[in-house]
């Protein structure tokens, strides 16, 4: 009797193997997506390099990395938000508010340790994130509306806090400005901070339970609830992280440009969302990889750096960026269809 069953099991293994090989194909497809993005980046780099040999110099690469650092820090938070099927339109305003408050503080107390300024900005951002998280998770307002409303509020508060003034370079102590210009082992601090955040974020999303629960909540909120995940708490957490990272980015921004203004980073949220979408984070929730958003942010960073370098008319830059984003998401959708088709084909009937 048992033998009979083993024979059947063997039969099943036959079909199962088919499944296994097909799965690797779909896995390849998924990897292919990131490889595709990488290929696009490489192609752009080669093209630009031919037009302008100073593109792929160590210095320029360092510049691109430093300029992309803030964008990519924000993308980490935005990725988490989008994974839970949300969106955060308020980050430009949050960034401005936390940057402004940090700048006003160092202006008033030039002796303040730069780390304290960083922490302060972080705390302000965190507070903003907590408010939004509360509105989304507890009150149940849809993310797009909650963040739209709070965007206005935070922006207004920034103007209110600064009294219409800017905090400019000479009002900031050198120690503060060095947050962004200083370097560690020859690598710009911004890049170091971004890399650390990436490492922590990677660890968080793939090696901690809470990190995985973020994916679970986005992938299937109902089952997450059933399997005992505290969905609301996860949502709240995600917006709080987004806020905290934005606060941090606000200080870095102000330090990098040595200027805090009321309209700092206005509209920047769209670039961040674009970086995530380019990096393959699905707006439908549940999926998104750190490696993807690094590539997405880098692609945007390279475009920002390269288009001026090859003398693309500034009037064309908008259009080119828009087309690249659209092409990337459409490509993404088509690849996903391919994977699904593939999954279907492997079913035996």
């Amino acid at each position, binding site marked *: 009797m048992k033998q009979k069953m083993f024979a059947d099991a063997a039969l099943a293994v036959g079909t199962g193997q088919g499944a296994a090989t097909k799965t690797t194909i779909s896995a390849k497809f998924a990897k292919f997506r990131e490889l595709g993005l990488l290929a696009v980046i490489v192609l752009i780099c080669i093209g630009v390099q031919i037009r302008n040999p100073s593109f792929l110099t160590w210095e320029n690469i360092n510049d691109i990395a430093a300029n992309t650092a803030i964008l990519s820090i924000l993308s980490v938070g935005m990725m988490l938000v989008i994974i839970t099927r949300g*969106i955060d*339109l308020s980050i430009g305003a949050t960034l401005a508010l936390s940057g402004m408050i940090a700048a006003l503080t160092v202006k008033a107390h030039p002796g303040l340790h730069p780390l304290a300024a960083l922490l302060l900005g972080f705390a302000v951002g965190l507070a903003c994130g907590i408010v939004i998280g509360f*509105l989304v998770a507890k*009150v*149940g*307002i*849809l993310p*797009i*509306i*909650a963040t*739209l*409303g*709070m*965007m*206005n*509020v935070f*922006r*207004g*508060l*920034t*103007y*209110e806090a600064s009294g219409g003034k800017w905090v400019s370079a000479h009002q900031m102590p050198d120690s503060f400005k060095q947050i962004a210009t200083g370097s560690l082992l020859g690598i710009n601090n911004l890049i170091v901070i971004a890399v650390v955040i990436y490492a922590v974020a990677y660890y968080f999303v793939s090696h901690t339970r809470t990190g995985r629960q973020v994916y679970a909540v986005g992938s299937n909120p*109902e089952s997450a*609830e*059933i399997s005992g995940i505290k969905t609301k708490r996860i949502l709240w957490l995600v917006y709080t992280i987004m806020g905290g990272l934005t606060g941090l980015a606000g200080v870095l921004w102000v330090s990098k440009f040595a200027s805090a203004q*009321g309209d700092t980073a206005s509209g920047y949220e*769209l670039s961040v*969302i*674009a970086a995530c*979408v380019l990096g393959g984070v*699905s*707006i*439908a929730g549940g999926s998104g990889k750190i490696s993807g958003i690094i590539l997405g942010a880098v692609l945007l960073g390279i475009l920002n750096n390269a288009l001026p370098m090859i003398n693309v008319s500034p*009037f*064309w*830059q*908008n*259009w*080119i*960026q*828009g*087309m690249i*984003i*659209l092409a990337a*998401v*459409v490509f*993404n*959708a088509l690849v*996903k*269809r391919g994977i699904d088709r593939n999954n279907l084909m492997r079913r035996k009937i």
Partner: protein
Amino acid sequence: MEPRVLTSKKPLTLKGFFLQWEWMLVLLFIAVIVMNVNLSDYFWDYNNLRDATMSFLDKAFIVLPMVFIIILADIDISVGSIVALSSVIMADLYAHGVPMELALIVCLAVGTLCGYINGLLIVKFKELSSVIVTLSTMIIYRGIAYILLKDQSVGKFPKWFNYLGWGYVGSIPFILIAFAVFAVLFGILLHKTTFGRKVYAIGSNPTASRYSGVQVDRIKIIVFTLAGLMSAVTALFLTSRMGSTRPNIATGYELDVIAMVVLGGISTAGGKGRMIGAILAVFLIGYLRYGLGLINISAQTLLIVIGLLLIFAVSVPKLKWKGTGAKGKAV
């Protein structure tokens, strides 16, 4: 089967009638008016109120189709860019000697086409969601406007064109009449036609609608196309009011419009809300801004007030619902 008799008379309960969101808007509206009258001596003046209306009504044309879009549980953030693109193309054509009447029609056509493209992309790539599609077309459409006009502004339109944004019929602004006509048309379309009914159906349950023979894709395309068309209408009025155009006009209109629609009680979750609410919200925000503008309040305070108003407006029904709704955990 035992026969059962059902009533087909609409039950008219007083409580149900007054528990509608729109009453809250009416109350808010009255509050704003009372506040404004107290704040400024210049507010309660026919000419002033009339001319203030003219200055905030331009984007209200987009509010009308946006109500449909949000009832469909979609969103369109490219409308501001469509305004810019259609306006720029119209002005550019006129500057190149095309008669204004023709340029005007082209303007409408361009807007319609942009909206159609949005709809088509959204329907063909369901994975993408309307946020992403219109986010990219937003950048693209404005990008085209920049490519066409570069840094120039184009203007010097014929005199009659000024009439659109600044003219009066009797003593009523032309733009107000135009808006009223469109509002009635869109109101009828939403509430009195099969089309509107289907829009609500799709917003509430797209699957069930499809199974009931509703052509979901077609309706979505039509709605987005209408949004494009109305953006072009806004472009006409806005261009007329500015007497000239350039690629950066109407920046940020999408967020203003969405905020008005949401304040009007139309839920971004889809399927809920009425045209009258959005129209009330247009005037509510319009007069609120105007009244606070009359006492020359700072721009930042205004931002905070409007942001908080939006949050407040969407939280109130949630909180109420929590108090009275079913207790069981929905899974």
